[in-house]
């Protein structure tokens, strides 16, 4: 695997949008060609080289390309958007939409990420070492097709609207979440190791949600069924098992009614 290192040297007046910083875009290009890839400030496009220093070499394919971002990227959006393979390591905080619509490969943020991190993610691994804001792994505004695959891990806390309209994949929050977890869910798994204030699984029809801490305010549409032992992120424990959201449609699949399962650690 080849590594290309980009050091952000200059801050833009507005926020930058860097949806073209992906192994897919960089693969097979020289440092000069990568420097010419465009980054947007508002409606104006600039060559990446006008903001950043570019060193190293990209691999011949996305799979063989690792991108390391140094400097302060906290005002840069959309890094790794729609990437399909390879790796991005961000040694900084980042702004919104990091890893949005990613299909494969790996992104690690050694810092905090803002909102819309990993939205509509379809595959790959996205890890945030710090905290995230809102709409982590959720659907794009208005869309009913949310995250469908991949593993999105936030090692700190997250805000609200986590995994909205989720259909597949896994979101792991090692800290706390605020409100609206797995709203309108139609599949997938969300694990919150800390506490959630409330509104877990509202209008959700399918999928699994695990909460290891406590939920301050349970949704009235969830009903206790039984206690079960589950292995969650490598650790076995006993959980109280609820099903819901009982206010929603629940189609029969092969004679069995499908519900969202909410597991609360005992």
């Amino acid at each position: 695997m080849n590594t290309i290192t980009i050091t952000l040297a200059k801050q833009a007046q507005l926020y930058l949008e860097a949806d073209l910083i992906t192994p897919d875009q960089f693969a097979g290009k020289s440092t000069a060609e990568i420097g010419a890839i465009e980054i947007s400030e508002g409606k104006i496009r600039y060559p990446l080289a006008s903001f950043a220093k570019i060193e190293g070499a990209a691999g011949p394919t996305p799979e063989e390309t690792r991108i390391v971002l140094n400097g302060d990227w906290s005002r840069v959006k959309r890094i790794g958007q729609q990437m399909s393979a390879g790796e991005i390591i961000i040694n900084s905080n980042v702004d919104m939409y990091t890893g949005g619509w990613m299909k494969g490969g790996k992104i690690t943020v050694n810092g905090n990420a803002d909102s819309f991190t990993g939205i509509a993610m379809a595959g790959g691994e996205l890890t945030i070492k710090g905290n995230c804001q809102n709409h982590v792994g959720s659907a794009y505004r208005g869309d009913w097709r949310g995250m469908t695959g991949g593993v999105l891990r936030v090692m700190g806390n997250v805000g609200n609207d986590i995994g909205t309209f989720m259909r597949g994949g896994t979101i792991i929050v090692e800290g706390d979440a605020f409100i609206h977890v797995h709203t309108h869910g139609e599949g997938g798994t969300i694990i919150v190791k800390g506490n959630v204030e409330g509104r877990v699984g509202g209008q959700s029809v399918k999928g699994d949600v695990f909460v290891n801490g406590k939920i301050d305010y349970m949704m009235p549409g969830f009903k206790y069924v039984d206690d079960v032992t589950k292995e969650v992120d490598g650790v076995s424990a006993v959980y109280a098992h609820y099903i819901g959201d009982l206010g929603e449609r629940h189609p029969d699949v092969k004679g069995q009614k499908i519900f969202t399962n909410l597991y609360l650690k005992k």
Partner: protein
Amino acid sequence: MTEYIIKNGCVIDPTQGINGQKMDICIKDGKIVDKVSNAAKVIDAAGKTVMAGGVDIHSHVAGPKVNAGRLFRPEDKLFKSPMRKSNLRMEMGFSVPSVSKTGYDYARLGYGFVMEAAMPPLEAAHVHEEIRDTPIIDEAAMPVLANNWFLLEYFKNHEIENAGAYASWILNATRGYALKCVNPGGTEAWGWGLNCITIHDKVPYFDITPAEIVKGLIETNEYLRLPHSVHVHANNLGNPGNYTTTLDTLKLVEGYKANNDFDREQVMHHTHIQFHCYGGDSFKSSSFESKSKEVMDYVNKQKGLTIDTGNVTLDETTTMTADGPFEYHLTHLNHLKWTNVDVELETAAGIVPFIYDPKTYIAGAQWAIGLEVALFAKDKERCFITTDHPNAGPFWRYPRIYKWLLSAKARNDLIANELKYGDKVIDTTYIGELSDKEISLYDLAQMTRSGVAKSLGLSHLYGSLKTGMNANVAVYDIDPENLPSDPEQYETAFGNVFAFFKDGVLCVENHEIVNYSMPKKTVWVNSIVPENKQVERDIRDKFLRTYTVDLENYAVFDEHVHNPYKIKVDITQ
């Protein structure tokens, strides 16, 4: 003194019986003329097709419902809104494009006039504001009337002169063009939790049937001598087995004659008829079937009718209609988001996203039925191509529909390769029986130009290349003497007009929009009727008692109407 000469193109103009003849079209000061001076700019159209600008009879492009569709579907713009090109305004949206994209895309297809298909009278100002902001194309709008409390009461008492006085007042107050009828009685009935499925179901409280409403509207329309006929979206849209309702509705024209000075012959235009040609009693392939032949057999022999197709384009789109109960029904079928707006006393509208997925049987069957309608039509001057934009698909897909009609190969390839249940579609529709049928470019010009303009009563303004006409002219990369062997070329050519003149201004040159600043027109009908004290009193009364707005604030102000083009129809003379 701008002059142009479009040289050596193959001209197709059904209004003059010209079918592919090599000739020059001259343009001077916005009009088509017999000759121009040597100073005229030359457009080389050798090996290309030249037609009048296209005319769209039914498209939802402006107003509160369309705008609600834009607000309601941010995801319709996601990754589908390219950065602004240097000489154009920003373009957004796939199924519900922004106003700028709407104007540009119609120009890219070579269209010069578009009829907004549903204007809620109370919201007319919004419709006109969006028309103003839509570049290039001339537009008009039809106020929605078939669930209107005034008319329901007049029709119940069979007071056609009063209905006429009210309809005339509405046309003037909204700067509207024609009388639109959506799910007659059904939308009102829905306010009571009911619907009208046949034309004999009574509307609660008003105690009147859809048949009486449609007949009342036909009589009112002909009493007012309007340019267009009543424009009908019948009851029971989209439901299996609805073709009997459709035939019953179409037969209501029997005994009526067109009464106007605009060359219009029909007394009813039935819109998006694809949605109204269904047999069977469910959407399953074991029951559902096409009844397009049964419906078109009647249309073909009934000169009092024109229709448009409402072709399904197999896209993800946004349905929006004043047929409120239908949208409610739809959201329970596809479980996607739904919004509804009630417009007090007048109408309502619902919106639901919809995916016509070629992997489902039903989308394939609907696709087939829309094409069957066009292929079965004997008189192409009476059958027009639409998608009921955006209901069956976005309007900018018209070139794809042309391709499916011009090329049997394109159609048969799609059945074989893209429809998952192609065999079942063939078994349950007539598309297999039509497997070698194709329309000609002349047919296409009738279905998108001359016939449409005539049905709208606008043949003096659009759809023709006769000397003296406004110079709306489209030049396409298609050589009628050497038709493309690859059907894709039809789609490319009709979707990217080579050159397009709007009112004599060169708008598209070499496939690129070069000018969108020409003055576009809002066409409306100024209907004048004898003084009618009773209707004036009824209007004042209803506004005092029931409307939330004051009568003085209801009518569209002149400032709302962009570059109005008034067609005066005075029945007192």
